[in-house]
């Protein structure tokens, strides 16, 4: 695979140039307070390159928080459908391999029983530039799910830090190749990695549970009291869902006046209290532990049944953002432990 080298300053300059091009959308890491967020870059945005990981994931670049799916005006006789804003070419920079790994997972879902052209068109137009990891923390567990701090899955370009000033650029896909060819002045020939790089290896994130045991336990223990114990702290907000790179639920809402209207696809979360509230008033998941059980079962059981892959990349964002103290790794480890006891 072809390799190049790019310095931090060249990368910043490249992102700035792309961000000032109004014919495209660029997403990159921006600092706010003590945290870094993947945000839409304007030409005035200050890129931050010194961070462990971002609070949110690259998800919102390809799967917007809200997007119009239908627009109309009522003129004279009838309803006039309006064209939706065109989907611009996208560049997403600054996610980690655990972000990029979510992309094929989302693609499976959005090309399943209904081909969601909103997602698929953006996916076609996106160039994903991933930063391999230099650090990890207690909430990381990509390796337990077949991932790696240097994983290439889902990326177009993978940047491996090889010196204090810059990264080795691995061209993972054709789109990545084309990207380099369109911006040749920023990339140099690859260099010999300096001593001490890469800073972390796969072995620095030990595998912490056996996924197949976890799935089997979840399959067989819908009514187990452990669910309530594990999720008692959860106060049913949507913070974990919205920062998760693989969570993809959405709501459809209408906003209209007498003369015009728009139908929007909006993020939604199965953790929120009214997610499953029926028109009759009945809510099959009225308790927070029922909703949390659903969240884990969806990711670690049902998704595997449907798509042969766990719907989690082990990024740990949900655990980091949860201020109620719910930690997905602790929960999965506990389930794994439970699965080794007795018959079940």
């Amino acid at each position, binding site marked *: 695979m072809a390799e190049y080298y790019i310095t931090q300053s060249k990368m910043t300059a490249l992102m700035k140039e792309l961000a000032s091009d109004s014919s495209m959308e660029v997403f990159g890491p921006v600092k706010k307070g003590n945290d870094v967020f993947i945000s*839409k870059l304007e030409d005035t945005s200050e890129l931050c390159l010194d961070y462990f990981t971002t609070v949110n994931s690259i998800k919102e670049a390809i799967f*917007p*928080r*809200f*997007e*119009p799916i239908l*627009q109309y005006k009522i003129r004279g006789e009838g309803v006039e459908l309006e064209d939706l*804003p065109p989907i611009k070419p996208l560049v997403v920079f600054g996610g980690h391999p655990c972000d990029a790994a979510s992309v094929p997972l989302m693609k499976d879902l959005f090309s399943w029983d209904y081909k969601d052209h909103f997602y698929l068109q953006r996916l076609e137009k996106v160039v994903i530039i991933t930063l391999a990891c230099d650090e990890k923390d207690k909430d990381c567990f990509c390796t337990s799910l077949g991932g790696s701090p240097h994983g290439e899955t889902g990326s177009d370009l993978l940047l491996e830090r090889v010196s204090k000033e810059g990264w080795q650029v691995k061209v993972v896909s054709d789109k990545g190749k084309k990207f380099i060819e369109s911006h040749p002045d920023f990339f140099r020939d690859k260099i010999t990695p300096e001593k001490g790089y890469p800073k972390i290896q796969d072995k620095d994130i030990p595998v912490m549970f056996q996924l197949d045991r976890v799935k089997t336990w979840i399959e067989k223990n819908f009514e187990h009291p452990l669910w309530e114990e594990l999720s008692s702290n959860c106060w049913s907000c949507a913070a974990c869902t919205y920062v998760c790179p693989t969570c993809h639920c959405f709501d459809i809402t209408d906003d209209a*006046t007498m003369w015009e209207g*728009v139908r*929007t696809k909006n993020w939604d979360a199965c953790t929120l209290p009214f997610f499953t509230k029926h028109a009759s008033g009945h809510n099959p998941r009225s308790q927070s532990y029922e909703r949390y059980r659903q969240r884990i079962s969806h990711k670690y059981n049902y998704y595997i049944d449907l798509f042969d892959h766990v719907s989690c990349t082990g990024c740990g964002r949900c655990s980091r953002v949860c201020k109620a103290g719910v930690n997905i790794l602790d929960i999965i480890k506990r389930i794994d432990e439970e699965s080794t006891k007795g018959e079940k």
Partner: protein
Amino acid sequence: MSENWEPKIITFVCNWCTYAGADLAGTSRFKYAPNIRIIKTPCSGRIDPMFIVSAFEKGADAVLISGCHPGDCHYNEGNYNARRKFTMMKKLLETIGVDTQRVIFAWCSASEGIKFSRLVNDVTESIKKIGPYTEYHKLNQKER
């Protein structure tokens, strides 16, 4: 702002005092600007902050709220509660940077036809000067 722009002032009035006052202005033929859109509530105490927010979201350039004078409320205390709520609403809107020149509170009784028409004319005049509330209308982004 086009030449023909006219402010749209959503006006919440209580049924017993201000609505009757507006009616009196009409029957007495006191002229007032046609820019207000009256929404009648039973009492000024019914006013919810969402009314102000919704009005701006949907294109209002100003919101005018009027009820009975304290002591004269048809429901005895509604406007006393309203007065406290209005204090809070005004403060929060100021803090958040909403143009509070565009949120006007008044007490106007059933016999104050003149006051009502003058109030409407004054408010319309001042909103005409500061223009449409495009800053708020721009918030309604359909796409990111």
